[in-house]
């Protein structure tokens, strides 16, 4: 359990980071909280020449409120979100999701951007942010910025859409209206473990948002951008049969489908109780 020998560079600006990343032969990996990368280094699943520490770059450790959204820097820690560092109104789901991630020691160091880039299907931030219809702000080595919806940023299990030389600057999360309802439910065999089933419900009629996301799949998230088409006439909750059929088409095991359905039902119950008005 020892990593290979590597150098560490503490970058001061994002320009410095993409400059380092520009040469694919240099073997540079970005590190922030190191809560996923650390174990991978120790198992030698990753063998970098250089680790570029981005936790000293203010642009990445801060957040910025915009008109209809908030930009959260990639190096903002989960623990600080749990502690209410971000505004609560419009973003009520975030501290609650943060508080349920692993253990406090992990949350103290682990970052929202690191979790998104690691793209573990069973992790919390990728699923929660898919549910919130967030998008990723990416910087290329030529200095150009582009934005990708979270659902396109995560391309598979432990795979993201970053091309060589690119880095994640942060995440844009749309503001929810005061009438928005949300539910976030995950199934863990043990407190702090990765989820084995996960459902996110995001209902915000003011933004015409009726989103349902399943995480903890074997690959990409299962995203239902508008679940109303799966509801029966009398109900505002998708029918279990319709969801079951959808999950069966994706070749999930019957036990996994049962767990995902349970999480979905509980997420909708939670959403029903989450409306403050």
């Amino acid at each position: 359990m020892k990593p290979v020998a590597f150098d560490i560079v503490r970058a001061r600006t994002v320009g410095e980071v993409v400059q380092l990343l520009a040469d694919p032969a240099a073997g540079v990996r970005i590190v922030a909280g190191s809560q996923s990368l650390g174990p991978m280094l120790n198992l030698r699943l990753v063998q970098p020449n250089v680790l570029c520490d981005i936790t000293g770059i203010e642009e990445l450790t801060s957040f910025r409120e915009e008109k209809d959204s908030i930009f959260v820097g990639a190096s903002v820690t989960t623990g600080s979100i749990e502690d209410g560092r971000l505004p609560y109104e419009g973003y009520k789901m975030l501290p609650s999701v943060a508080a349920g991630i692993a253990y406090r020691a992990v949350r103290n160091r682990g970052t929202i951007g690191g979790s998104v880039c690691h793209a573990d299907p069973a992790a919390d931030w990728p699923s929660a942010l898919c549910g919130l219809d967030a998008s990723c702000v990416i910087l290329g080595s030529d200095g150009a910025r582009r934005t990708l919806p979270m659902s396109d940023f995560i391309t598979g299990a432990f795979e993201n859409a970053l091309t060589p030389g690119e880095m994640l600057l942060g995440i844009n999360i749309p503001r929810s209206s005061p009438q928005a309802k949300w539910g976030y439910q995950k199934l863990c065999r043990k407190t702090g473990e990765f989820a084995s089933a996960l459902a996110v419900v995001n209902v915000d009629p003011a933004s015409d948002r009726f989103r349902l996301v399943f995480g903890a799949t074997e690959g990409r998230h299962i995203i239902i951008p508008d679940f109303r088409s799966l509801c029966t006439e009398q109900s505002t909750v998708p029918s279990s049969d319709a969801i079951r059929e959808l999950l069966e088409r994706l070749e999930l095991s019957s036990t996994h489908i049962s767990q995902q359905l349970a999480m979905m039902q509980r997420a909708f119950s939670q959403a029903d109780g989450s409306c403050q008005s």
Partner: protein
Amino acid sequence: MEGGRVVGDNNSISLRDIARCWYLQPQHLPPDVERGGLEVTEGYKPKSDFGTFSYATHVATVAVDPLTGLTEILDYVVVEDGGTMINPMVVDGQITGGTAQGIGSTLYEATPFDSQGQPLASTLIDYILPGATEVPNVRIEHMEIASPNTEFGIKGIGEGGAVGPPAAIVCAINDALRAKGAEIYRLPVTPERILESLQRAAGATAPGSRI
């Protein structure tokens, strides 16, 4: 020795003062002091050479979620006869710690291999151990029936708690599953195994279908 004091020709000193001097003020010890220290070791042979077993009954109350397959331990009681307890705190520790181990082997711990013989649980990321939130507050009652065969009536207590949980917890789970015609008899009892047994029972044509 007289009344806890060592008595010489002209003076005496308490055992307490000797101990304090030995451990805290060794500079005051005489140069020709016995270097073996203040330790005494005694051995003895019990009347019976066939072990000094303790006895216990474990009872678990569990909730099984038929949708997720998760098992939650609601209550756990151990009644243990460890004979005369020399240090009750250590006895309770052995029972609780052993029960935690037993909960691990019942619900969590497994070392699976894939078809190529590759171990699938080679780190604690994959090998799940019960933590503080998975081990209930084990309620312990002591019987303290002195062993006729040992000094002081003591009985062996080490790790005894590890033996009971698989039987107690699986029986409780099967009691919950019985109404649905399902049964579990393989460890660890994972959520998947519970759901498979329920699904099999729901679809079974023959009664008593097992996984």
